[in-house]
């Protein structure tokens, strides 16, 4: 009897998990389906789920109208560059906070996180003017630096949490064996925190990939990433749902594939240290 109840509960949990999973995935599925419809089918009432005339016309039109390759390469450069640069800066910062904390470390961590609470539009004009003065509007390198700075508090926080799980005695032992600070971080700490660093890398890559406020405001042509690509298909006047869905599908496809292949690493990193 007890076994039957357990099995029943298991089945219920599984069904619930599937329902929640499908509900979360449904907007993406709907976007993908809409991208294969005509504009008329895209707005049909009641909505058509599968029984429509499948067409690739939206994709060919989007490819014809926009330079997808340029937007994609900019997204890869900006998201990848900012994530890697962020990790390079955040690893030593998180090390010092985790292993040689001062009286103010907790305050500094909280202060860093508080910068994320400022509405981005509040600093749009200062940042915009700064970019004009430095001549770096619509510049990929500038976007790498700006997105790195935006995501740095999260990177430091995540790494700090992972590093705190690593026993300080191991680092002490390395020091006693004659390891320099650089060697201690590179050869002892980093390999032990690989799952945490990998999940931080992935999460921040996704955050930078999806960042839309700064990329829409500070880029126009040369540095414009996929967020600009999607925005160019949005319109309050006319029928653009199917084309917008095709553009959205093309923009999210790379990050979906990356997420799909790295989900094991991502989950492992995010739950790292959760169970002691």
């Amino acid at each position, binding site marked *: 009897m007890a076994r039957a109840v357990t099995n029943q509960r298991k089945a219920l949990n599984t069904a619930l998990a599937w329902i929640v999973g499908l509900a979360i995935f449904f907007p993406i599925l709907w976007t993908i389906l809409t991208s294969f419809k005509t*504009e*008329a089918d895209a*707005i*049909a*009432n009641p909505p058509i789920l599968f029984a429509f005339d499948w067409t690739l016309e939206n994709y060919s039109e989007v490819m014809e*109208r926009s330079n997808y390759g340029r937007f994609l390469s900019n997204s890869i*450069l*900006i998201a*990848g*560059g900012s994530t*890697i*640069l962020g*990790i*390079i800066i955040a690893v030593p910062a998180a090390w010092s906070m985790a292993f040689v904390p001062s009286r103010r470390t907790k305050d500094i961590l909280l202060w860093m996180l508080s910068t994320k609470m400022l509405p981005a539009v509040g600093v*749009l*004009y200062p940042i*915009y*003017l700064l970019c*004009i003065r430095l001549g*770096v*509007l*619509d*510049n*990929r*390198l*500038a976007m*790498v630096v700006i997105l790195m700075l935006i995501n740095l508090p999260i990177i430091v926080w995540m790494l700090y949490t992972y590093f705190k799980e690593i026993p300080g005695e191991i680092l002490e032992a390395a020091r006693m064996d004659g390891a320099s600070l650089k060697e201690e971080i*590179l*050869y002892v700490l*980093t*390999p032990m925190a*690989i799952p945490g660093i990998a999940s931080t890398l992935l999460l921040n890559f996704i955050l930078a990939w999806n960042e839309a406020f700064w990329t*829409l*405001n500070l880029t*126009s*042509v*040369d*540095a*414009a990433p996929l967020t*600009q690509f999607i*925005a*160019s*298909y*949005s*319109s*309050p*006047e*006319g*029928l*653009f749902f199917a084309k917008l869905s095709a553009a959205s599908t093309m923009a999210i496809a790379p990050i979906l594939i990356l997420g799909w292949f790295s989900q094991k690493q991502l989950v492992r990193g995010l739950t790292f240290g959760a169970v002691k």
Partner: protein
Amino acid sequence: MTFRNAFCASSALAICVAGTAAFADGHSATITIATVNNGDMIRMQGYTDQFTEETGIAVEWVTLEENVLRQRVTTDITTNGGQFDIMTIGMYETPIWGANGWLVPLDGLSEEYDVDDILPAMRGGLSHDGTLYAAPFYGESSMIMYRTDLMEAAGLEMPEAPTWEFIREAAAAMTDRDNDINGICLRGKPGWGEGGAFITAMSNSFGARWFDMEWQAQFDTQPWLDTLNFYQGMMQESGPNGYPSNGFTENLNLFNQGLCGMWIDATVAASFVTNPEDSTVADSVGFALAPDTGLGVRSNWLWAWALAIPAGTQQQDEALQFIEWATGTEYMQLVAWNEGHANVPPGSRTSLYENPVYAAVPFAQMTLDSILSADPNNSTVEESPYVGIQFAAIPEFAGIATEVSQEFSAFYAGQQTAEEALANAQAITNEAMEAAGYQ
């Protein structure tokens, strides 16, 4: 390869590529144009190669959704950022930005361009102190689009210039709740360019105005109360469910699916609802002037999407060349030749409406009549201090009108009474106008 080597190599590669790529681009004869995403603009982008072939000037497009574009170009022009050589702006921004010296006056246009051919209403709305600051790419007013079959079935005939009372009666007669047919679809969505634009234009015909000559808000007057009560009463009787959140696109979808008897909106929508590829009712659409109440002002608006040159550009001559090409008669002929007259950008030039082939397009005459009957300098029954029909051309208007339209939408949704919505609108407007130094 060790983790460290891989990490260092990939970091260096990403930063170097980003850095070198940042300085690798650039072409001396390339102009960058910021524009909105709509059918006419996208069509123009398709013909850009011809302009480049003729002039040797390359064109880069930055296409954005209307509200994003507005924020983007405003940031750039107010900081003299120089990101764009041409900006697509509307009738609201042009006189304000022109007065601030942010736009290059278009007084260097060639004789062949024939600036006098631009419709007077468009020219007036895109000028400041008699100087043209933007050239209209296309213009629009608003009018009634209605289902001729449903109107006939209701035993009614649409006059060319109906009153609001007739529209309300006709909407009730055409409504068929069992078959999901709504007698009338109108904008109710918050936002100064959405429901705010519609209700302001409608209020003009009821004798309301935003400000008196001392810039005092006028929401505490009877005409505003009449406007809101009439709108809400009619929409409850004959409008679609969820109308307080419907904008242009939602109503277009409803109309194209045959779920609206009438729709009062931008004249540019006429080509969408009569296009059989998108509309299920394309062959049974009629047109009429926007309604009035007999007070001498109709409820149609006036708008243009126009091309302007920001003062910060380094390529003024090239930008002017493009504007002459894109808003001139040659471009219209190019589109007419390749895609038919119905696809020519409407509402900007007199010569287009003198063309007998274009005059045969079913909505051409009504579009022209609607544009000609709209006067942004004389848009209210009582005298008002501002220029504009569905807006007041002052910098503060967009912010105030967005808040006011939110109050109105809350009334439509039954969250407050008309009196409460108007009292809140009055307070919001007067507070903002006082802070801005008008009062």
